[in-house]
């Protein structure tokens, strides 16, 4: 989340006194023999935009359905505001969900869809229209109030689903792949809209997505999941720059992985041997304390590697290679470079100059270089 003032950075998870809105304590969920969620413990704080990210079948939807009340945990407790909600039915929870399919009632107009939850609440009858109008304005749907769901576009339907879920002012809003059905451009616009609405309403959002870019864009913290376990929970920047494991590094964005053995050089610096005949990678600013000879993986993002025609003087790690392939993406070019040891490395450079003046082409001998602090050393 973008905050203009760095002094009041929103980070309740760093404050040991902060009380979480949601607390999963050792939650396990089994369906028959299949363990969907395996001994999961997380805290989610008020006003957070929390993303559950992982491949399909990793258990992220199960977590969401447990929060909504459609599934009960096999073991462990789920607390909302300090109250165990494991046995509270969905209609009695201060939690609302935006469904992946939107689940709009096809026989009701946009207005009636949004009013549906309010009519079931203890809100006075004469206050409902005002609340519905407010939701319509928030989601810019004023003009479509009388239409039926099949008479509006996919993007508008998505906003109706959001307005309906927000109308009851839930303590927690769950979003199940909310943008999955939209095309790329609309999805990007809607991501910012979601963040805007989240900040305006101050509601805690938990979003489930398999799209890492989406999670990185909208979330204050991202939980990367795999096989019912959480691999890492952190801010998008930390997840990207300091992944805790090769799984996370590989799942989020592009990464080059070098498997090798570390040699300690003292004071957080290491040399990593990754192949016969190749100069070791020099690493600095490493937080791990590793024994010499420990087997490690060095991970470095493609954009941290510079491609140049001459060996640069100012870089700690320089290696020669041959360009095998060039992926031109418009704003970036990705170079697939083969190192003398046969290893393939991806390096991406922004296309600051026009295509006609590009320096490198296929089969060119070039130099790859990066600083000793550009990558991370992983032991998992």
């Amino acid at each position, binding site marked *: 989340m973008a905050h203009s003032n760095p002094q009041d950075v929103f980070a309740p998870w760093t404050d040991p006194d902060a009380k979480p809105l949601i607390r999963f304590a050792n939650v396990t969920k089994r369906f028959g023999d299949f363990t969907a969620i395996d001994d999961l413990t997380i805290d989610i704080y008020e006003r957070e935009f929390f993303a559950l990210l992982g491949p399909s079948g990793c258990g992220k939807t199960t977590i969401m359905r447990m929060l909504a009340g459609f599934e009960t945990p096999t073991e462990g407790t789920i607390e909302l505001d300090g109250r165990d909600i494991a046995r509270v039915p*969905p*209609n009695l929870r201060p939690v609302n969900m935006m*469904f992946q399919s939107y*689940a709009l009632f096809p026989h009701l107009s946009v207005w009636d869809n949004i009013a549906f939850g309010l009519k079931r609440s203890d809100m006075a009858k004469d206050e409902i229209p005002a609340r519905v109008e407010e939701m319509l304005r928030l989601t810019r749907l004023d003009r479509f109030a009388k239409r039926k769901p099949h008479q509006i576009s996919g993007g508008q339907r998505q906003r109706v689903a959001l307005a309906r879920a927000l109308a009851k002012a839930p303590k927690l809003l769950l979003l199940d792949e909310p943008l999955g059905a939209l095309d790329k451009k609309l999805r990007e616009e809607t991501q910012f809209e979601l963040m805007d609405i989240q900040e305006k309403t101050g509601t805690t959002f938990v979003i489930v997505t398999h799209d890492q870019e989406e999670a990185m864009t909208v979330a204050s913290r991202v939980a990367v999941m795999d096989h019912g376990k959480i691999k890492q929970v952190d801010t998008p920047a930390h997840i990207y720059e300091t992944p805790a494991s090769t799984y996370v590094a590989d799942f989020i964005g592009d990464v080059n992985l070098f498997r090798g053995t570390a040699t300690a050089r003292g004071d957080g610096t290491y040399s990593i041997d990754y192949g016969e005949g190749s100069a070791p990678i020099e690493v600095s600013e490493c937080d791990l304390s590793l024994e010499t000879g420990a087997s490690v993986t060095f991970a470095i993002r493609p954009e941290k590697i510079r491609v140049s025609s001459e060996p640069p003087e100012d870089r700690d790690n320089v290696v020669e290679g041959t360009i095998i392939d060039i992926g031109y993406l418009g704003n970036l070019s990705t170079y697939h470079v083969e190192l003398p040891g046969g290893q393939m490395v991806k390096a991406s450079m922004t296309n600051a100059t026009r295509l006609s003046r590009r320096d490198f082409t296929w089969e060119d001998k070039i130099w790859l270089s990066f600083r000793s602090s550009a990558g991370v050393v992983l032991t998992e």
Partner: protein
Amino acid sequence: MKRAALILLPYSWLVVLFLVPFIIVVKISLSDPALSIPPYSPTLDLSAGWAGLTSFFGALDFDNFRFLTTDNLYWMAYLSSLKIAVISTFVALLVAYPIAYGMARAPEEWRPTLLMLVILPFWSSFLIRVYSWKAILANEGLLNQLLLWIGVISEPLTILNTPTAVYIGIVYTYLPFMVLPLYSALEKLDTSLLEAAEDLGCTRFQAFWLVTFPLSRNGIIAGCFLVFIPVMGEFVIPALLGGSQTLMIGKVLWEEFFSNRDWPVASAVAVILLAILVIPIVLFQRNEEKQREAEG
């Protein structure tokens, strides 16, 4: 040209098998009964030329329709059929809805089997199935024996040859016509809609009433018409199960044709029955069209 030829096929089917017979029935209804073969006059004699044609049309009149208004039997039979059709349609809906709902909510791998079970009775003769109800409902029938054995009753109930037996027979026979459209409407229902309703504060029952029921409306309407229209003209079930007490227009029609051999009056009864049924048939088609529009 190709299109026209393609359309010609169903149209000629309708003309030959529906329109022509209907015109013949209308013509007979305007004729006079006669002791001859066929049992009515006039018959069209094209060899007499123009004179024959004019005398043919001159002999047609509305006497039979007028006759229908003079005897209470006919309009009472129409009303009685209407009543039986309305009540049995409603009962069939009440019975079929839970069946269809259960089928639609059953695990997916069971559904073809359940569907098969609903359709299976069609594989045996309709007459045999109605006859077997005689064996079940008779005074010494299976139902009475069972009830006596359990001790619910001490005297056998008289069900056969009463309107109750007719209702039982009709609801039983036409139940699949109600179950199938309801099932198809309920099966299409996205279960996440019910979860959404619960999520927004509905109890299970409210979710059913506010979401499932209105969304199965088209199935309800289709099923009701599919039962109501044929039951209106039903004559086998009242003849076999209803005895002499049950008056239905289909039975009257049968008797006029085959017992009285009064084809003209029978045809007049049939024409009026058709006129009555045109209203629900048109409504039914309009409902189907609307549904297609909403889905398209």
